[in-house]
Each structure stands twice: as structure tokens, then as C-alpha cells.
């Protein structure tokens, strides 16, 4: 974790900072004697004391001490239990305190198929959780209905609650769940994983951006922000910001197909 030097007071002119050890030792001795004050004191404090924003500390605490809610629905619950087991220990990430009551939990791991009878119950449990709360949709069934495309299973839990992380698998290996859990931790700490679009310079290939036309303002800002983070981390980014890349080409004109209705921008379908 990088040390952030944030000034608690108004930014002043950058004083010269002497980093040699002897000088610092002398300064420390003077500090203890009460001989340094004013600008020197602040500069010394910034150099030697780890300061950071309060919310960063909070996020770090939240991410490393998540209380999952014990919510097993079906087969994925067994793999979730084995994540708690000694081999794939989730306690090393601080999340072994599984709380039974939703009021004491912050993460809901939806492990298993959500049937139509269970969906209102899950929603009620989610509502009973206190902010901040996160949802990990574990397995194919809760992410998208899985193999059960029928009358009885809700085709994806994100039809009725916001899901932060989807973990694929049927059932996902415990390591896969831990990988998703680590991604969630990074997300909580405000330092999300660089998405694959940045990694592969594929900005503008999203479904909505393939339409001929421009990128929306929010998307442009979001991509700029992601690009900044990527650049700060030293990762490659795509060339021109905000230019959609028309990967699939323009839609072919076909006589037998009815004309596409006008759709508003920014929606997937």
C-alpha cells in the first residue's frame, strides 16, 4: 500500500526535503527536545509518520474483516463450506466469522440456485443487512440461472438484487470463490482490478459502443478514470481515449429482417 502524503493544511510551497539519515536523526532529536516547530515540524511529521485518508483506512478494515452471512442454498453451499474448511482457508483473509443473522453480516454469498419461492426471502434478507453490504453470486445458477432455464429458477439473482461479484462454476472450486472474494476485497478498498478491456486495449468494444455513434459522457469519464488508474499502475492503455472501436463492423442490411428499432444509448439490449 502506497503511502499517501496528504496535507492536512493548505498546501505550502514545497520546502527542500533532506533525506539523509543523519539529518533526520538530528531533526528527530530536535523534535523531542521541542526545538522544531512550524513548518519544519509539519514537514518532519509528513516524512516520518504514515498518514492516510480516513476512508482508506476504513475500507481496508472493511475489506479484511468481512463477515459473510451463512446463506447456503444448494450445491454451491457445500463448496462454500469447504472454503471455510482448513484446506482453502478463508480465515487467512479475515472472513471466517460467518454470522447467521443478516443484521450482523456484511457479505451475502448467494451459493446455489434461487428458486422463485426463495427469491422474496433472499430479497428480504438482503434488505435486512446493514450498509455497507456486498453480494457475491457464487456459481452459475445464481449468476444467470445456470443450467436450469425453467419455470422454477430465477434466471440470475441480479434480477432482484445488486450483485457485486459473479463467480462462475458449477460448483466453482473453492479457489475460484477465493479469487472472487479477493476481487471483492480489492473493490472494497477502492482499488479495483484493472478490467480486461484496459489490459487488452479494448475500450469501445462494449455492446452499446458498437453502435455507430459516440460514447456517452458517463462512460467517457469512467473510462478516463480507469485509464488513470491503469497508467498510475504502469499498465498499457489503448491509444485514443473515448473512441469506439467498431469490431464487428456495421450491421448488414438484410431485406428479410425488419429494421432495428431506435434504442437509447447506453443500454445493452
Amino acid at each position, binding site marked *: 500500500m502506497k503511502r499517501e502524503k496528504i496535507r492536512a493544511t493548505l498546501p505550502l510551497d514545497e520546502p527542500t526535503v533532506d533525506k539523509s539519515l543523519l539529518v533526520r536523526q538530528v531533526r528527530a532529536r530536535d523534535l523531542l527536545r521541542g526545538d522544531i516547530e512550524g513548518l519544519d515540524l509539519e514537514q518532519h511529521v509528513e516524512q516520518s509518520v504514515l498518514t492516510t485518508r480516513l476512508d482508506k483506512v476504513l475500507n481496508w478494515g472493511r475489506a479484511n474483516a468481512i463477515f459473510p452471512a451463512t446463506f447456503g442454498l*444448494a*450445491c454451491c453451499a*457445500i463448496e462454500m463450506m469447504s472454503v471455510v474448511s482448513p484446506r482453502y482457508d478463508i480465515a487467512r483473509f479475515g472472513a471466517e466469522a460467518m454470522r447467521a443473522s443478516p443484521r450482523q453480516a456484511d457479505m451475502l454469498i448467494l451459493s446455489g*440456485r434461487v428458486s422463485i419461492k*426463495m427469491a422474496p*426471502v433472499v430479497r428480504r434478507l438482503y434488505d435486512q443487512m446493514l450498509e455497507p453490504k456486498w453480494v457475491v453470486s457464487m456459481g452459475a445458477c445464481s449468476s444467470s440461472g445456470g443450467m*436450469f432455464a425453467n419455470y422454477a429458477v430465477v434466471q440470475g439473482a441480479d434480477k432482484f438484487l445488486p450483485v457485486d461479484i459473479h463467480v462462475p462454476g458449477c460448483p466453482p472450486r473453492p479457489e475460484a470463490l477465493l479469487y472472487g472474494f479477493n476481487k471483492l476485497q480489492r473493490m472494497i478498498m477502492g482499488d479495483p482490478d484493472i478490467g480486461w478491456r484496459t489490459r487488452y486495449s479494448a475500450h469501445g468494444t462494449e455492446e452499446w459502443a458498437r453502435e455507430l455513434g459516440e460514447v456517452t459522457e458517463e462512460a467517457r469519464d469512467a473510462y478516463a478514470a480507469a485509464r488513470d488508474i491503469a497508467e498510475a499502475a504502469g499498465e498499457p492503455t489503448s491509444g485514443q481515449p473515448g473512441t469506439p472501436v467498431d469490431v464487428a463492423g456495421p450491421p448488414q442490411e438484410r431485406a428479410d429482417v425488419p429494421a432495428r428499432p431506435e434504442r437509447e444509448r447506453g443500454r445493452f439490449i
Partner: protein
Amino acid sequence: MVRVSEGNGAGAGNGSHPDEEGLRDDNMRGSAPAHGRDVVARSSAEVVGTSLIERTGVEEALEPEQELMTINLGPHHPATHGVLRLLVSLQGETVIDLKPIMGYVHTGIEKSCEDQSYWKAIPFVERMDYLSYFFNMQAFCGCVETLLELEIPPRAKYLRVIHMELNRLHSHLVWLGTSALDLGAMSMFFYCFRDRDRILDMFEMSTGQRMHTRYFQVGGVFEDIPVGFEKKLRAFTAEFPSRVDQFEALLTNNEIFLQRTKGIGIVPRERLKALGVTGPLLRAAGEPWDLRKVDPYLAYADFDFDIPIGTVGDGWDRFRCRIQEMRESVRIIDQALAGLPEGPVIADDRKIVLPPRHELGTSMEALIHHFKLVTEGFRVPPGEAYYPIESPRGELGCFVLADGSAKPARVHFRDPSFVNLQCLRDMCLGGYIADMIQNLAMLDPVLGGIDR
């Protein structure tokens, strides 16, 4: 352990009822039966009677100070072993009535199977009772093989038995871990899951997947076990009985465990049979009924193993039965490994079973068969069959109605947990709510099987 007796105790606990003989234990039980209202008098305990009416005394009018409180346990509850909802009417802490409500993980598997070819229905059916997936597969494949009148090769039978007995161990380990967790013995959970992971390593080695392996196919098994599987499995079975001894050392003579399970949840054997209960619950009550012995299927007739039978049918007997079944499963696996015959692992009827991949490059018929089987699937002549096997929870039966096409017209699973759940009410009535948790744990319900 004290237990409140309802009613005037005229029929309850006088000691004359023959079914009560197993219940009496002079050290633990109290003195004369007590009348209802006085709290002090009520606290001197007496064994509850066996008939429902005696135990609950519901037929007498409830006095004002006896209030019924109906609470709802679940569907989200740490101790319901899945999403089971129980409506429990309590008087104080005593269970007066109990109503299970299921369906919270109903997935419509039986209906979905009607839309898939027989081969593609196998992953669906194995997700029903999600702890015993090999048994689900065996029930379905065995039923379809009955309809097709297809013989599977002996090596496939042995491999199926090995994987099924490993699955039985896995299921009992998960049961033991979660039940002990319900009763407060948290470390059992970790020990059992540690061993469970070793079994899953076996499955991953032979089938490629930890759970829901889609290993059994109609005609045999998907592919042969790899080199090194036998050695690793032998190492496992050599060590596992000592692990079971460790589990027993933790629980069997543990005073707390004994007090919580001894004498709790007894249902007479005839009542269990009337309720259709099978599996370790019925065996703990003293009925020597195990489909592997009485009606052997696959290769079980070749092996020498015992069926543990209980005497009283309380929670402790159920625990002991399952622990001993784990040991017997290890014996079966050892014998199966020792006697594993050589040969093909799947039948060679190309109209039903995929040809091996190396033939696809050279043989035109193999290619055509492969194409037809993958796109359409094999057709099963019209007929219906019911194929029961012994799963870790009881009799798992699969009914398949075939109408001559490549898709089954009806698949139904007679799931043991669904039928066994009907005895929960009998087990819990008259006991404490804490005993209800224990009864539910010893019942070993798996909601995937109950709800399908």
C-alpha cells in the same frame, strides 16, 4: 436430561408399555409422572410416552397460562441443513406441533429432464441430492439401462461401486461435520471437511471435477481411472479408519453428545415403515434393511460387508450406524480395488454409447454414430421402469417413462429425504426445541433431494 411430560401421565412412562423398555435408564430418569400446571411438579421429569396423543396431551384443553407460541424456523437458519422452513408450535420450550414447508430450492429438474436427451439429463439429475451425486447418476443410468436391457461390463460395475462408496463416505462426512456443528462441536466440522477434501481429490483425479462429475454414463462410466488412482485410493483407505476412530473418540463417549442424543427422537420401527422411512434411520431402529444386501445391484453381491443395525432408534443409534457405515464403505472399496476386473469401462453398443475418439478418424460408422448420439441422442423403446438403489439417506428410486424418442417423457425421483422428512414430526413432538435441532441433524435431510 429432564423432559416435561404432558398430560396426567397415566399412559406415559408407567413403564408398562413394551416400546418403552429401551427408553428407561435408571440413572437418568426422574420419579413419578407429574401433572401439568405446577412448574415445580413439572420439573421432575419422566420419560415421554410413545403415542402422539400421550406425549402431547393435545386433546385436553389448554389452560390460559399454557400459551402456544408459533415460531418460524427458516428458510434461512444455520441449522436447517439447507432451506427448510419449519413452523413450530411451542409451549414453553416443548414442541407441540411441527409443520415443514419445503420448496425453497425447487428447481424443476424433473420437468427439465423431459426436454433433454438421456445423455444430457445426467447432469440435471445429479444435482438433485447434491451430496450424493453418484447415487443420483446411478439411479438414472440404472433405470435407463433397465429400459434398454443393456448389460454393463464388470469393470464398469466395480468402478461405479468404488465411486458410489466414496460418495457415501463423502456424504456421511458432510453429515457428521454439519450435525456436530449444529450440536456445538465445531472442531468436528473442520476434521470432517479435511477428510472430505481428500475424497474430492480422488474424484478430481478420476473424473476431473470435485462435485457433480457426470462420470456415470448409460452403459458404464465415462473413462477409465488414471494411473496412480489406485495407489492414492489405497493410501486413503488405509488411513481413513483411523480417522473414523478419531471422530469416535471425540464424540462417542462425550457426555454432552450422549446427553443430547441418547433417548431423543425415538420413533417405533413399525411407524417408520408406515411412513416409508428407509436408510440409516430405519436401520438404527432395528430393521435390517439395506438394498445393497437384500436386493444387490451392480457388483455388491461380490463383496463381504456388514450392515450396522441399531437397537433403540434414537439419535445416538443413528450416529453410530452412520459411523459404522463409513467403516463398511472402506471395506467395500478395498475389496473392489482388489478385485477390479480388466476390460472395457463402458458397453460397446454403438447405438447407445459414444465410440472411442480414436475410431472417429478411421471409421465412418463411428463418425455417424457419434454424430447421431451427440445431436439427437439414443432412443429408448417405449416403457417405464422404477430402479431403486441404496443412497446414504435411504432408498433412492428413479422412475423413467420412455416414449420411444430420444428424450424421456417423465423422470421422477423417489428421494429418500423427501419421504424421511415425514417422520420429523413424530420425532420432535413432545421434545424440546433443542432436541428438534438434533433430530433434524440426525435425520440428514438434503434439501436438493427434497425439493428437486
